[in-house]
């Protein structure tokens, strides 16, 4: 009996790693080819090289894209985290008719296709007389990542006992003060984690950035244009760098969420 169980266990174990392998296979291939000296993305593997990495580092267009992406993503995640903090506070601490519907409204950007957000924002903002630019990208991407930030923070806030704040009020603290002195420190790790998570989402985001932008490029846009204009092996190197950064940030965020 035990024997058949352990066989089943092992099978599931193998299946698990097989699925993980399938998911990560393209990325593994990309990482391997980023060190391949051949100009073409085909086997066999030629010589080991770090040339593509040098090319990327010395390519001003990649650097420009990277800088834009970093600045925009930083602004987006900062904006989204701060707004989401207040938003989550009011959602968690209030009880009014229609709260669950409003809650849903806050979360819809998560399920609406990105392309719709991109198009509608482009049309709306152009009609208002705004030129597509990185500022608009910042606004658009903030809308895109806000639901995530609200979800994370309200999840944490609903775990904080209500009577912590009540004790502070009874000692003479105003509501604003208790929000900053009691709730904010209790959300410390979640705030950092939310910042990192929204950062990685904004950093990878392509559709909104493409629709709300005229001439400035972000890193995902640069990668896309290099692919359209013909294959450049340096893409593998860029992809590897982005993947490793995202992985590190994502894991850090996960660890911070676990710390509360």
């Amino acid at each position, binding site marked *: 009996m035990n024997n058949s169980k352990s066989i089943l266990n092992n099978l599931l174990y193998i299946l698990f790693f097989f699925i993980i392998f399938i998911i990560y296979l393209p990325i593994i291939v990309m990482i391997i080819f980023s060190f391949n000296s051949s100009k073409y993305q085909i086997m066999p593997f030629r010589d080991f090289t770090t040339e593509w990495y040098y090319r990327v580092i010395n390519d001003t267009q990649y650097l420009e894209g990277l800088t834009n992406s970093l600045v925009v993503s930083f602004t987006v995640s900062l904006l989204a985290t701060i707004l989401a903090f207040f938003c989550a506070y009011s959602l968690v601490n209030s009880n009014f008719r229609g709260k669950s519907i409003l809650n849903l409204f806050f979360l819809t950007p998560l399920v609406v296709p990105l392309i719709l957000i991109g198009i509608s924002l482009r049309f709306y903002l152009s009609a208002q007389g705004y030129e597509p630019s990185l500022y608009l990208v910042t606004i658009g991407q903030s809308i895109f990542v806000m639901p995530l930030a609200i979800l994370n923070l309200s999840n944490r806030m609903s775990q904080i*006992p209500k*009577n*912590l704040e*009540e*004790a*502070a*009020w*009874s*000692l*003479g*603290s*105003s*509501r604003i*003060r208790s929000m900053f002195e*009691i709730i904010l*420190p*209790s959300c*410390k790790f979640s705030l950092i984690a939310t910042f990192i998570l929204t950062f990685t989402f904004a950093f990878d985001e392509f559709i909104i950035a493409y629709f709300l932008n005229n001439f400035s490029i972000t890193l995902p846009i640069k990668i896309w244009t290099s692919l359209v204009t013909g294959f450049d092996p340096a893409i593998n190197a860029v992809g590897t760098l982005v993947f490793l950064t995202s992985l590190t940030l994502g894991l850090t965020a996960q660890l911070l969420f676990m710390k509360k």
Partner: protein
Amino acid sequence: MISKSINLININKKFNSVEVIKSFNLKINEGEFVTLLGPSGCGKTTLLRMIAGLEYVSSGEIFIGDENVTSVPPNKRDTSIMFQDYALFPHMNIEQNIGYGLKLKKLDKNTIKEKTSSWLKKIGLENYNNRMPYEISGGQRQRVALARSLIVEPGVLLLDEPLGALDANLRKTMQVELKKIHSEFGITFVYVTHDQEEALSMSSRIVLMNEGEIEQLSNPNELYDKPNTSFAAKFMGFSNIYSISDIQLLNSENIIKHLKEENTNLNKICFRSKDIEINPQKNGEFKIISKNYYGDLYKFQAINSNGLIINISSSDNKISNLEINSEVNLTIDNSKIISLQK
């Protein structure tokens, strides 16, 4: 410290459509130790939270001292509340927790330091100032919470089952401590509990609550000795509560005589199990049907031929020989029988 009175005038509270407090009137004098006692769901905690300002009243008025505070937010009220789980701020150390109220009062750093260290000393935690709340024991947390509430010198201290999370021994010690602190500071204490023993041992008056209303308001020994209603009697540990129709089933001379002397509009009677005298006798009126040992006493149940069950307890050694199915006669002193209104 300046002690304040509390006056609750015609308070009503509804949660959605459920009425949890019904036309509640209560005046608490300065310096009193009043306990709101009752089973869970009777509205005692809601009432306390309304005094603190953490809950709105649906209608009615609350006065603290001479001030009408009905719509005053909690931070502007001269009250301080202490919770069952203490609600210490987890990101502040013990010293910062105790000093938080003073920081809000914008006292200068040295005064805060001075006052908090004198309180740390008073509660016996002078070397714990840098510890975090999760690094100290439940009893110590309880004392920190008490110091944090009292350091702001409130006119009224509200306590929401503050001993509920402690073990039995520590609870007894803290009852004595709290009582001492109350007489030392002389401020008004409003204490919420469902534990009748706690209420009896500490309060100057007890408000027994039932379904959002006052069931009985009296001092502890009056409540213990002379409950007005069967609810109060049950809550105060009377195990023998009978309606008139029950008593008809009783052939016992003694109790029937008492009832005949009473006026007829009486509804129910009660008496304590320890006040019944047991006389073992062959062919006695009652038969023992259960016997349980509780350390310093035995508890019995006896039944008569009409099926009326009476609870008896005794610490008498002779009685401990009684076994199930022993036949006994029961008598009770008339003065021990209490008439109830409902």
